[in-house]
């Protein structure tokens, strides 16, 4: 096979990269190879947003004209080869040819929204993505869009003012005739520039003895995964990026899920919502929200927009962290995972995937192909009351100390069936079987819930760490059952509502 370069459109200009170790991040490449130093490194783990850039992906939905979807990502944990076929915009790309500032940049200046300036390019890019996708954002939308950007100087108020002051975007300007570069506003022209970069065959890229494979079919991917047991499987890279930047690990081969079309799709039907392993978290959450809007607030607090734009639900599941926020909720919904090894696939209830801390019921070479979630009101899952709660030191973009999900079915005052699962309470995301047993068949009452709270102590022996102490974890886990009861009781007209949440009661 001929060595192939990585091809992408950088600030509107077609660009090729070769000879760069596939572990190298987009940030390193921009700063060290191209000397585009506007994009900063603040943490190298996707938690501060100083490296935020905007990528554009060609949308080839048959129902409409080709368009480009713009989203913010953290360049520090984004492996360069995954940009193949995409557009990348950095802060340098926003300034107009005549040197004048982009309206987003101008709004930041006008509102006194920079002090030390180091985080500023990242904020500008997050606001730019917001501006493109939500032309006149509300303050609440701005806050959500900036959840992944830390500023230590301003206290954020002027940045939020800038978000509101951004002039409304009016349509997509056409590319200037004869222009050598394409601005992100020129959607059609950008799509035109991206079209020839789309590949029809599997893409492989090698440098410094490391090979990056981006197969286009499940069969091809699975064959490689079975043949190369020590290869890394890379999806959004929001965890793998830390293996590289923080653990300083490396692989000889990297298998990228993102080019497998079937893995990037969401299918609905037959009572199932079927989400491919390469579907970004944001898209998976959008689909889940349609079925289970009660969980929307949890998805809002799940990482940050750039992480949700890159990271995948499949990756969250395969990574199987005891503190991953998706698992408790998927477990109580009765989700299943499809595992594949070579040509063989099998389906497993998600909760059975996790055996012990970092131990999974996956054979070597077996990988997570998709996750299936029962649709609401399907035969399997009639009228569910559901809730999920996240407890962390900070509202936005924090890792849970405790994450709780509950799915309840009751009739005429007693509990028919209940599933409760927790993250942060054990070495794996885990059901609270004792608490469930205490509730099942019992009247749906505060006394019943208090019995379940007591039973919860038999379900878990949590750890103490920097996120919370063991006693607090257990106590708050118990109290979350009470919160659910109060909220559930509040939904019953006869009972006076009890305000039982601070964080989710957004006052904006």
């Amino acid at each position, binding site marked *: 096979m001929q060595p192939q370069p990585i091809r992408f459109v950088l600030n509107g200009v077609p660009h090729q990269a070769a000879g760069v170790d596939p572990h190298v991040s987009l940030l390193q490449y921009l700063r060290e190879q191209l000397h585009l130093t506007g994009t900063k490194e603040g943490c190298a783990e996707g*938690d501060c947003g100083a490296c935020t850039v905007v990528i554009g992906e060609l949308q080839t939905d048959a129902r409409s004209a080709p368009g480009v979807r713009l989203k913010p990502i953290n360049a520090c944990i984004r492996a360069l080869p995954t940009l193949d076929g995409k557009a990348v915009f950095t802060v340098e790309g926003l300034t107009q040819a005549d040197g004048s500032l982009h309206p987003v940049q101008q709004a930041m200046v006008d509102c*006194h929204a920079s002090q030390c300036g180091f985080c500023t390019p990242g904020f500008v890019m997050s606001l730019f993505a917001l501006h493109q996708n939500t032309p006149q954002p509300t303050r609440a939308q701005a806050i959500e869009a900036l959840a992944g950007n830390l500023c230590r100087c301003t206290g*954020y108020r002027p940045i939020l003012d800038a978000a509101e002051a951004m002039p409304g975007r009016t349509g997509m300007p056409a590319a200037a005739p004869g222009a050598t570069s394409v601005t992100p506003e020129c959607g059609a022209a950008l799509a035109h520039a991206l079209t020839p970069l789309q590949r029809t065959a599997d893409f492989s890229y090698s440098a410094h003895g490391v090979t990056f494979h981006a197969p286009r079919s499940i069969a091809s991917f699975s064959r490689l995964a079975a043949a190369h047991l020590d290869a890394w499987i890379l999806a959004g890279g929001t965890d793998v990026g830390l293996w590289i930047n923080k653990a300083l690990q490396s692989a000889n081969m990297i298998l990228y899920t993102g080019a497998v079309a079937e893995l990037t799709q969401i299918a609905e039907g037959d009572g199932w919502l079927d989400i491919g392993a390469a579907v970004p978290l944001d898209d998976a959450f959008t689909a889940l929200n349609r079925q289970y809007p009660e969980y929307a607030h949890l998805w809002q607090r799940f990482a940050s927009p750039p992480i949700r734009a890159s990271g995948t639900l499949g990756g969250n599941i395969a990574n199987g962290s005891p503190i991953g926020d998706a698992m408790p909720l998927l477990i109580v919904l009765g989700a299943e995972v499809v595992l594949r090894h070579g040509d063989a696939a099998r389906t497993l209830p998600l909760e059975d995937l996790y055996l012990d801390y970092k131990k999974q019921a996956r054979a070597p070479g077996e990988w997570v192909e998709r996750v299936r979630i029962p649709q609401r009101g399907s035969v399997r899952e009639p009228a569910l009351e559901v809730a999920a709660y996240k407890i962390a030191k900070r509202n936005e973009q924090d890792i849970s100390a405790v994450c709780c999900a509950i799915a309840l079915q009751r009739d005429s005052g007693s509990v028919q069936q209940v599933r409760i699962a927790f993250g942060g309470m054990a070495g794996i995301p885990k059901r609270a079987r004792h608490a469930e047993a205490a509730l099942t068949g019992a009247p749906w009452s505060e006394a019943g819930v208090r019995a379940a709270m007591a039973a919860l102590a038999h379900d878990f022996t949590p750890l103490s760490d920097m996120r919370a102490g063991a006693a607090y974890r257990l106590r708050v886990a118990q109290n979350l059952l009470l919160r659910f009861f109060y909220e559930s009781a509040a939904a019953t007209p006869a009972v006076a509502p009890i*305000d039982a949440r601070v964080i989710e009661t957004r006052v904006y």
Partner: protein
Amino acid sequence: MRAADTSLPHESAHLHVSGQARYVDDVPEPAGTLHAGFGMSVHAHARIKTMDLSAVRAYPGVAAVLTHRDIPGANNYGGIVHDDPLLAEGLVQYHGQPVFLVLADSHHTARRAARLARMEYEVLPAILSVEVALAQQFFIAPPRTITRGDAAAVLTRAPHRITGRTRCGGQDHFYLEGQIALAQPQEDGQMQVLCSTQHPTEVQHIVAHALGRASHAVRVECRRIGGGFGGKESQPALIAAAAAVAAAHTGRAVKLRLDRDDDMRITGKRHPFLLEYDVGFDACGRILAADFMLASDCGYSADLSGPVNDRAICHVDNAYFLEHVTVRNFQCKTHTASNTAFRGFGGPQGMFIIEHAIDCIALQLGFDPLDVRRVNYYGTGAANRPRNQTHYGQTIDDNILDAITDELEASSDYRARRAALRLQNANSPIIKRGIAFTPVKFGISFNATHFNQAGALVHIYKDGSVLLNHGGTEMGQGLFTKVAQVVARELGIDIAQVRSSAADTGKVPNTSATAASSGSDLNGMAARDACRQLKARLAAHAAMLWQVAADSVTFVNGSVCAAGHTMSFAELVNQAWFARVSLSAQGFYATPKIHWDRAAFKGHPFYYFAYGVACTQVAVDTLTGETKIERADLLHDAGTSLNPAIDIGQVEGGFIQGAGWLTSEELCQDAQGRLTTHAPSTYKIPTAADIPPVFNVKLVQQRPNAEDTIYRSKAVGEPPLMLALSVYHAIRDAVASVAHYRAAPQLDAPATPEAVLNAADALRAARTNG
């Protein structure tokens, strides 16, 4: 014409937003630049038995590995006490302490190679908490007791008395730009260093000492830094000196940029304090006597802990007159990173104890805490018992606390909201709301008198453009903007004619750190001095041209005028040059009136005080301990503001940073003394979602500084941070509601959800048992 006292944008705003503003890591690297990485201790306290670095040296891409033996001069970066080795010699005293330095062809290679060292340690017992250090009398400096009056005697006869213990946690600076330096060897053994620092002069000195060279051989430059907050006052000397030693060793440029995790492990933080109070008061809540114990966790070395503790002691009064007071101060040594300067510099911790005590007094008496605060406010000069002298002997004659308290009390509707929230809480079993109103009085000047000096260098070029240089560093606080405004105003020219240049030890020497909020006070005055010299020369020339009196010549709107004559500034400058008039001037300033006897702990250390008041409302979930700031009203004193937009930015930013310190920012370590919160994934500074949805922030109007500061402005960098004490006290107020405001919550800072729930549960348990 735009000049002083207008809200001009930050001089670099257009560069910040377009990514064109250059930080050290953005400067193109000289050919052959090596990248450095530290090998770090994996024990909190241990003797290094053997150190086998052969695998590090053999790693592909590694050019050299240095240990303390390769340092030609002093192996130290401690500025006051010389107890901070650049690279450990035999003994390591904290987990993460730099032991050796790898030089490689890339940042990544250096870090990878550093992990290959084979080290053998003899592990020694480690002291990891201030409590243990205090019990074992393990100190970095001898304990001190500061007294005024006879607190012990008055306490015994006070009608009411409360005692208690609390603590406030440390805080990582979390500047977005990590520590970095680029050292470039020059001819004849000289060294040029680009460094992200608040203190170029100290970096220069320590680099010179490490190289065994005179100061004139080292030039340190800093155009801007990506946030400092005190974390780049003493700490950058380590980074710069290590890079410079490596550059001298190899003859190549060396860049040392710390990865975020390493930065957080290696560098010091805000001092955590263990605090005890014993306070006697009367039936009105007026404090009759107080005994305070302040034990700070200094980490393994002295660093700036002495001055930090001085400022803490100087601020145990906050806004309150303490007639009889004893302060017992212990500077505890622990086997952790050496704690250092952080915005407020001990002031927040000192204020923390008295605000805590006042809160407890109010709960005991069943009073509104604001009434207790007001009854204790410093007096404003009633003839016979003025109540206006601090415990360190400084008379306060610029007190505006009563006036600004009245103003904010009214504008925030504090009393009515407090009453309404109490009613609301009675009917809300889970969510409790709290409100608190707290004042700030903060002393402005470095405690140590000799640091209160500054220099500036102003050049006027023949085209009338002006290049400004001064000893201050730009860390986002807008110093360069403010000083440029001063120059524009003095010379009567547009700000666009004034360019600020990088702080540079080769231009203005022997500078103080840009710290203690003093940047614009000191450098603004030094720049004004330079401008007035230049103006005098230009006026004399104009007077000669026009045959008028020199003092009749005015500089306004880009023109120079006198007696009907007028000429553009640029034209006069050009003519003066032809007439061989010097167009460059060095300005200087030394703060007047101040003096300080550290041994006696008496004097007039502060030129003036800056004041502020805050009223904050929070909601607390008493099932989970989660909190949310719902509203904050801030009124802050910047004197006659040099730039209201920039000052509002300091007030808001300081408040949110302080709120982080007191709520979500928790530093944790494991049993081995390893910092476990060493990255933004585990250490949580506020985000945009954490700011109050109702956020009313104002500067005090029409109250110029009583002292003759630059255009009667006031320093504004640190004081607003302490307005955030209102957040912590609002949380306490909400928690106290679970016991119907009859008992004081045992709530330390930071008030994390866990701490809040524990405090609420303890009150509930006491209520049930009682």
